[in-house]
């Protein structure tokens, strides 16, 4: 049935669309502005939550250091309040906090009494490695799986999608436990207790990659199926291309687009997912530090890790957006 475009006059349906480089620059600048705004927001929200919500920070600080949980007298608290500036008005504390951040100062840990930045930089390498390795592995699982099962008939598709649903629904920590029991305890292929070497990294990586692969797979599949119904698929077949060729050379590229967005999102969640995986495999890293900090209410450290994580998250998503503009030229034309 002929559906003739009419609806929105706002969409320029015809004529060569304006595509100036200033348009692209403008877009990138807008994204950059939005990114900086979100960064500022995460810092501010973290600060507000920690300074306004219950619990006297000076008391907590003293208790952490002494290892006791008792009420403190004002005489005991006064020097702490003065040293950390807790007695200052909120606005002053906020300005000091933000200007500290701008100089790369995330404050000092309550418990360890060392700069938070140092603690993080010592521990981030194994965690970041793990997250990136898991993302790469998830993609390695997903692409052949999609090509093998998507767009090749209802039954194969249903099977592929059922497997993805189950994988995506598995809790990371339980996958880790399962792998640990089977491959480390029963089969003895890998060490039970974690370190950060290559051998110790295999199981944690697989643990994080499996549910993520299910998740990415779901979104790629639905886009794959949608693209399979597009007329350009028929055009390509009519040119003499094989069904497999169309899937690999045309459709896959369309299907990868939502996967790319999802990867930006996944990095942030992988970094936090390592918290659980590091606990399962007793693997050192940022996650272990964070769990300990939450347990002891070491707010300086908790907020430092939180801000760092959201910083990475926002930064990676900004990069993903730029990649997007390269992969999907349609976005460049859009208003």
């Amino acid at each position: 049935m002929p559906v003739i475009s009419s609806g929105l006059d706002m969409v320029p349906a015809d004529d060569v669309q304006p595509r100036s480089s200033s348009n692209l620059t403008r877009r990138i600048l807008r994204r950059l502005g939005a990114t900086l705004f979100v960064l500022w927001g995460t810092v501010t929200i973290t600060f507000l939550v920690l300074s306004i919500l219950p619990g006297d920070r000076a008391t907590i600080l003293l208790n952490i250091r002494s290892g006791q949980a008792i009420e403190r007298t004002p005489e005991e608290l006064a020097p702490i309040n003065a040293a950390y500036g807790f007695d200052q008005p909120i606005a002053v504390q906020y300005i000091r906090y933000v200007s500290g951040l701008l100089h790369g100062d995330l404050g000092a840990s309550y418990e360890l009494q060392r700069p938070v930045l140092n603690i993080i930089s010592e521990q981030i390498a194994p965690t970041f490695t793990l997250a990136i390795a898991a993302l790469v592995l998830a993609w390695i699982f997903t692409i052949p799986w999609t090509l093998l099962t998507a767009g090749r008939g209802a039954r194969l598709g249903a099977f592929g999608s059922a497997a993805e649903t189950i994988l995506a629904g598995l809790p990371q920590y339980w996958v880790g436990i399962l792998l640990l029991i089977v491959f480390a305890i029963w089969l003895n292929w890998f060490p039970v207790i974690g370190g950060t070497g290559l051998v110790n990294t295999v199981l944690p990586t697989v643990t994080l990659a499996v549910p993520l692969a299910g998740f990415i797979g779901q979104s790629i599949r639905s886009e794959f199926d949608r693209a399979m119904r597009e007329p350009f698929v028929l055009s390509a077949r009519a040119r003499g291309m094989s069904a497999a060729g169309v899937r690999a050379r045309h459709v896959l590229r369309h299907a990868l687009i939502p996967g790319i967005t999802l990867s930006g999102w996944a990095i942030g969640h992988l970094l936090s997912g390592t918290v659980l995986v590091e606990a399962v495999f007793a693997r050192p890293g940022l996650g272990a530090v964070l769990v300990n900090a939450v347990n002891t209410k070491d707010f300086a450290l908790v907020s430092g890790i939180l801000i760092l994580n959201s910083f990475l998250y926002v930064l990676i998503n900004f990069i993903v957006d730029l990649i997007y503009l390269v992969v999907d030229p349609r976005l460049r034309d859009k208003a």
Partner: protein
Amino acid sequence: MTASVTGQARAASERQRSIFKVPLSVALSVLVALFFVAAAITPAALSTHSPFDTDLLSSLTPPASDHLLGTDDIGRDLYSRIIWGTRQSLLIGLGAMAVALTSATVLGFAAALAPRWIAEPIDRILEILLAFPTLLLALLFVALLGPSATSLLFSVGIGTAPGYARLIRAQTLKVKSSGYVEAAWALGHPGHTIFRQHIAPNAFRPLVALFALGIGQSVVWASGLSFLGLGVAPPSPEWGALLEAGKANITVAWWLEIFPGVAIVFVALSFTQIGRYIQDRLEGTLHQ
């Protein structure tokens, strides 16, 4: 034309018939969900042993006819403990979802429908909150509130809320800009009627599916926090706590780590499956 008309009519009648004919996976999911709901309501009826009686003589026995899923280090029956832990695990999931959806609905609606000076800041705040991964946001609140079942419920609820709020906002915006809302404006209906008759009901519909989808995920998050030792503490048979308690004996008693996880996976998958099914049906009947 005739062919497409009968095609549509047939599709419609197939949809009608399939009310009584759900897919096998959904039927199984409903059965699993019903089992756990029953366990949560009357654990005594479904358990084989007391979940608290210790029996040091039969500690760490593997699954067998006497102890279906084995025993823990002080001889408590694991199956019965999982059954008795269901109530708390499900209630935390349910409560977290209630917290998440209530706040998400208010924020999502406001971000989509309120005047610009309210909607815009809310939208920005949601965007900022989304930069915190769920688990970290939940951890922040656990750190503030201290570990307990209630704080777990709120932490998971708050941790998952921003994502749901953005979903509800998007759905509401879609309804708001839909053809039927424009048609209602063009007819001359006042704004409050349009909200009551069209926007609210159509924006609310997907929430049912979201709720079912979310319960499973909340149980997963909450148990994860307990597993980290930041939620419900071990003497309780809450599933995450069971996992944490079993960690010490993982090399000798695999069942202590596997079966509580199986319960979590079953709940997560069955509720997800049910939620998906509701979602598909709503979309199927409403948008061709």
